């Protein structure tokens, strides 16, 4: 295990740093260009657009995912009959591979026969071009909400069930309303859980790739070209610029490591020790 960990994870992470200083193709020879790749990165329209798109995607998808999941879990944790069935259906989209999810959403967003536009037609509204350049990124975020809300909902249910019941009984006796119990008890008690969820869902959100490839192929134009999409294009597309690919990857890796470390620090300081 430790061998695999070193060979296929530690070495590649370090390798990314080396590759990011290279120019040329992944199979042909490369030359060392120092930090030039990074200096040129901000000027590369494709690279900045990819980073921008990824951040917007994260901002659009994560709040609805977590707020929706919290709402669902608050109800789901307090429901008796049928809980197992609800859990099954709420969790099912989580198990859909991104590629398949992208295919499924083609059937929702198609202008001629898509579910969304058929619903609009049924209520007499003009159909919308869902995958146009203004809306495609939003649709991609919506897909992510559909696919991930169940994961965090189930996660939160477990957290809510684990909360100390005495506090709630005491609050009820004191006549605290449901809203007040949520605001003054549930939210503070779940602070760490929520923080964890925000960090992890951000890390996941930054990796979006397969849904963008299948649903929109990064387009129209570069409207849904994400970081990993761009890395893939740089390496295996027509323009063989492996140094740029590694440089953008490194930006992503550093972002993810920063988030991970921030999380470790915060959780540790709250608990006192490891």
């Amino acid at each position, binding site marked *: 295990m430790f061998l695999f960990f070193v060979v296929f994870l530690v*070495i590649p992470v370090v390798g*990314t740093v080396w590759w990011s200083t290279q120019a040329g193709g992944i199979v042909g020879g490369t030359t060392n260009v120092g930090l030039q790749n990074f200096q040129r990165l901000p000027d590369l329209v494709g690279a900045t657009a990819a980073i921008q798109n990824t951040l917007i995607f994260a901002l659009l998808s994560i709040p609805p995912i977590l707020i929706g999941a919290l709402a669902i879990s608050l109800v789901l944790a307090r429901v008796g009959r*049928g809980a197992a069935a609800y859990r099954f259906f709420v969790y099912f*989209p989580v198990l859909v591979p991104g590629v398949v999810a992208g295919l499924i959403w083609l059937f929702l967003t198609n202008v001629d026969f898509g579910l969304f536009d058929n619903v609009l037609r049924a209520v007499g509204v003009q159909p919308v071009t869902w995958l146009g350049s203004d809306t495609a990124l939003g649709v991609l975020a919506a897909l992510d909400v559909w696919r991930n809300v169940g994961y965090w909902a189930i*996660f939160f249910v477990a957290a809510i069930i684990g909360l100390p019941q005495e506090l709630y009984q005491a609050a009820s006796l004191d006549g605290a309303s449901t809203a007040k119990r949520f605001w003054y008890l549930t939210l503070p008690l779940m602070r760490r859980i929520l923080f964890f969820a925000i960090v992890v869902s951000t890390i996941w959100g930054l990796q979006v790739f397969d849904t963008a490839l299948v649903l929109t192929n990064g387009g129209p134009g570069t409207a849904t070209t994400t970081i990993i999409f761009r890395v893939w294009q740089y390496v295996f597309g027509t323009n063989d610029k492996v140094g740029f690919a590694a440089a953008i990857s490194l930006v992503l890796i550093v972002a993810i490591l920063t988030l991970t470390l921030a999380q470790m620090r915060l959780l540790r300081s709250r608990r006192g020790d490891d």
Partner: protein
Amino acid sequence: MSVAVEPRHGNPGALQAIAAEHARSRRRRRLRGLGKHAFLIVVTLLLVAPFYYVVLASFKSSTEIFTYPPKLLPIPPFIGNYQKLLGDTGFLRWMFNTLFVAGTVTLIKVFMDSMAGYALAKLQLTGKRAIFLAMLILLMVPLGALIVPLWALVNWMGLTNTYLALILPPLANPLGVFLMRQFILGLPKDLENAGRLDGLSEFGIYRRIILPLIKPGLVVLAVIIFTDQFMSFIWPLIATSSDDLQVLTVGVAALRSHGGADYGLWSAAAVMSLVPIGVFFFVLQRQFLARSLAGALKQ
């Protein structure tokens, strides 16, 4: 409320008032219960509607798919899409590849992770803390961000277009070791000490004492690994270019990008892709839901 102290002798008016109050609160509770179910049913319908719509499309011919208003029940069902998918594409081969790779990775990893987790939890190793910390830090780095060096490495090893290229890199993921370490740390020490007194080797303790105790954890771990593997896309995409080695996600993505739009075929592919994971989920519901909770263990 003071009348409630002596309900039997209290005046009938107060009794009635109490009864009415009870009925009211019961009604309110039932109403709230109904509200909960209504909310959950709406959520469920929203989440399930896309599946229904695709299943529907998969049983329609190309012209029927484009018909408005859409038929909401596929009667009579059109099975041409499925015939085409199973007969004219490599779908069954992709499915086999996915199940084979995911199954192999899961088997190896469950065994390896539990042993490594045991080592990290119980053995005196130099540099144990450093290894653990490195794993924790790199826990979240995805294969997608490492495709350049990883591809170069695998190519250098001469493994491109082999099953090994698909199987080896995912083994590096430290999540399983981490979960197993936490799980094993939670076990009572007495049992292994008893084993040690009886002269068991460390491997003997792992095999005879630890392994049976962590069985439920192993099943959850297997589900986590298998699901991740089933869904993985970018690494299989770049590690293989031969048709024979394509896994399900890669094959399905190729259906989408090569050739013209064939919505009937695509919908059938989407439905068929979900069959194995759907069956596993139905059988192992509890373990799958625990997959979501594995994140909580990380704390």
